[in-house]
């Protein structure tokens, strides 16, 4: 594989090609260090900010007088600030870092001129800061997932252009001949996002379309941020870290291909399911429902692929933090997507539409799937770019258990509460059959609110649990950066010591 003397060969002429690969990886990791570190640190910062807004918003929903005197902290603004901070702040920064770290490694391509990527990251974060400040002072566009005011968007655009171009250049100049499945997903995501974002900005803000065409553009955009950006990045990470940590190949290339293309074709039509029953033509609603249901195919195919890769190695979950978070995320992806396909069915949508069930589903996707996968990725990447180990396994364990239990509680809680709310709100005959109301006439609206209050309180408790996890993570994150490298410590930070230390890797 090596054509000219590489660094490793120059140090030790007896190296094998495996060592060459590893030396190559060390160069690649080193080249990604500063941009990845900057992006990940920004991401963790936004995670904390987003968590604060989340807690405030959650408390307001069951105790509306909380901070009720401040216009800039009214629920409609804190909830929006939360969404934008965790999506465009935490999730996108983490996506950028993971995407080009994976792309550099898989393309076997050193990241050149990494300084420009740091500039891009700075621009992105300035854009998001300006955007969220704008929302709090009252410049929100009130378009879901696109609330940042127009004056923040040029910076975001510029930043994205730089990141996108760099990932493609890294891919183009890579030595790898085979395009691994994670690379397909990352390249696709990088291409799809600017198309979605530009059309949304143009047809909703700069030259607004007439009437409910806006709603179609809005939900084509917003759902595809989930389906064509976050899902591919998350799947790319799972497809890399799962086989990497286990040291086994992905079960079937053919399933990977099928999973990728069926996702590409079906996912982008699914967004219309947010408008079922609404003032948009029924044919496009039915198309969105059919596509949402067809999504079962890529989800099942990917789940089989991951599961059969994992089979026989489940005990590795005892040791590896990365693996635990990744597998939790992968299972959540399957569960949330199957729920999503079910929710698109008209008779189910009749009950769940407009309720907290949808909020539970959204968090299952963005948190239980995407965020947990990002956590797992970060636990793997940081030691490799910093050349230091994570200081505290206990903090990692605390992080895992609080976020895993917290997010599961959150999702269960809102789905149950939301379903009850939906029955009372939308289908009184069914609600009567389930014994939720005495007659078959619709109950007064205030009753549908009152029934959700205990569930909203439990949502706050689960959020507090998740916050503890985030703080543990942030402490560990800051600690690994500031601690001095100890030359003697060469063992990975695992949950417990496996019997065969050298073989089991982080």
């Amino acid at each position: 594989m090596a054509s000219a003397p590489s660094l490793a060969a120059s140090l030790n002429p007896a190296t094998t090609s495996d060592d060459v690969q590893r030396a190559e990886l060390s160069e690649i990791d080193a080249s990604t260090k500063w941009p990845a570190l900057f992006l990940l640190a920004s991401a963790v910062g936004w995670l904390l900010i987003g968590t604060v807004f989340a807690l405030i918003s959650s408390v307001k929903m069951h105790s509306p007088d909380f901070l009720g005197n401040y216009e800039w902290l009214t629920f409609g603004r804190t909830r929006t600030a939360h969404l934008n901070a965790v999506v465009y702040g935490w999730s996108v920064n983490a996506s950028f870092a993971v995407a080009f770290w994976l792309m550099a490694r898989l393309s076997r391509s050193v990241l050149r001129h990494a300084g420009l990527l740091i500039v891009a990251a700075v621009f992105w974060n300035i854009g998001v800061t300006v955007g969220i400040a704008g929302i709090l002072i009252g410049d929100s566009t009130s378009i879901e997932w696109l609330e940042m005011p127009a004056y923040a968007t040029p910076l975001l655009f510029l930043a994205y252009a730089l990141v996108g171009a760099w990932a493609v250049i890294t891919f183009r100049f890579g030595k790898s001949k085979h395009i691994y499945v994670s690379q397909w997903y990352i390249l696709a995501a990088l291409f799809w996002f600017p198309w979605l974002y530009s059309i949304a900005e143009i047809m909703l803000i700069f030259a607004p379309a007439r009437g409910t065409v806006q709603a179609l553009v809005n939900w084509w955009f917003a759902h595809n941020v989930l389906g064509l950006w976050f899902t591919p990045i998350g799947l790319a990470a799972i497809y890399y870290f799962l086989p990497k940590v286990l040291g086994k190949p992905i079960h079937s290339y053919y399933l990977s291909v099928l999973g990728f293309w069926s996702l590409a074709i079906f996912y982008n039509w699914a967004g219309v399911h947010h408008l079922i029953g609404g003032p948009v033509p029924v044919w496009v609603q039915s198309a969105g429902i059919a596509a949402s249901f067809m999504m079962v195919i890529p989800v099942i195919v990917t789940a089989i692929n991951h599961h059969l890769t994992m089979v026989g190695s489940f005990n590795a979950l005892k040791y590896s933090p990365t693996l635990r978070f990744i597998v939790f995320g992968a299972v959540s992806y399957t569960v949330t997507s199957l729920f999503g396909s079910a929710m698109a069915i008209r008779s189910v949508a009749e009950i769940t539409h407009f309720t907290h069930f949808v909020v539970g589903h959204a968090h299952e996707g963005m948190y239980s799937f995407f965020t947990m996968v990002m956590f797992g990725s970060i636990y793997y990447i940081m030691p490799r770019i910093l050349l230091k180990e994570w200081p505290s396994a206990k903090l990692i364990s605390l992080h895992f258990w609080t976020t895993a239990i917290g997010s599961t509680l959150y999702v269960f809680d809102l789905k149950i509460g939301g379903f009850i709310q939906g029955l009372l709100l939308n289908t009184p005959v069914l609600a009567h059959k389930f014994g939720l109301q005495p007659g078959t006439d619709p109950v007064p609206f205030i009753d549908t609110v009152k029934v959700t209050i205990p569930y909203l309180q439990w949502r706050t408790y689960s959020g507090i649990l998740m916050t503890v996890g985030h703080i543990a993570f942030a402490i560990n994150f800051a600690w690994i950066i500031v601690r001095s490298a100890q030359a003697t410590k060469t063992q990975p930070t695992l949950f417990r010591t496996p019997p065969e230390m050298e073989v089991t890797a982080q």
Partner: protein
Amino acid sequence: MNRAPLIFLGIFFALAFSWTGIVLTNQISYGSLKPVYDETEGKSYPLQTPGLAARGKQVYEDLGCIYCHSQQIRRPGYGDDIERGWGDRQSVAHDYIRENRVLLGTMRTGPDLRNIGARQTDRTWHYQHLYDPQITSPGSNMPPFAFLFETHKIVGQPSPKAIQSKLPAKYQPPAGYEIVPTERGETLVDYLLSLKDTYAYPETKNVYVEPTPEAGKEEKK
């Protein structure tokens, strides 16, 4: 690397497929709907939102009302919108063509507001509800919007717009002070009062009718 161009083409056409189908096709087929002129009434529907109400709509947007309130009525028999008295008929695309920003909404933490202007015409009720929702709707989890009102010393004549006489005892300002809605509060209520979709566009007749028993078929949907 020779597969890369093929992968790119596939990725391109995948998104082009839905962009064409969801965005482009609908923009072409109903993106230029015009208001309907009604001969009997001599007006074009939907009516233009009055100026003050348009200002109020900006307030609705910047406060994020959309995150709890929807503005779309679903057809009878699907969900309970019409049965709850939230509207007479299903909302149609024509209802929204004059809106610079369409605020359909996706949550009903609070009731649908599409026809609130037909359902609750009392300005005072709206002021009470915004000042503190607990006044009109005990147990509600809507936040208070007292910052849409201003408490100031009465100078000269008391303002005709003062609302403290309509508020319960615990909200009373000190003697000599009055509570008046700010421009934001007043225009927001103007906007809410303007929300009513009463016109029956031709397409509102495009509804499924259950076959009558004489036809011999009983198709329950």
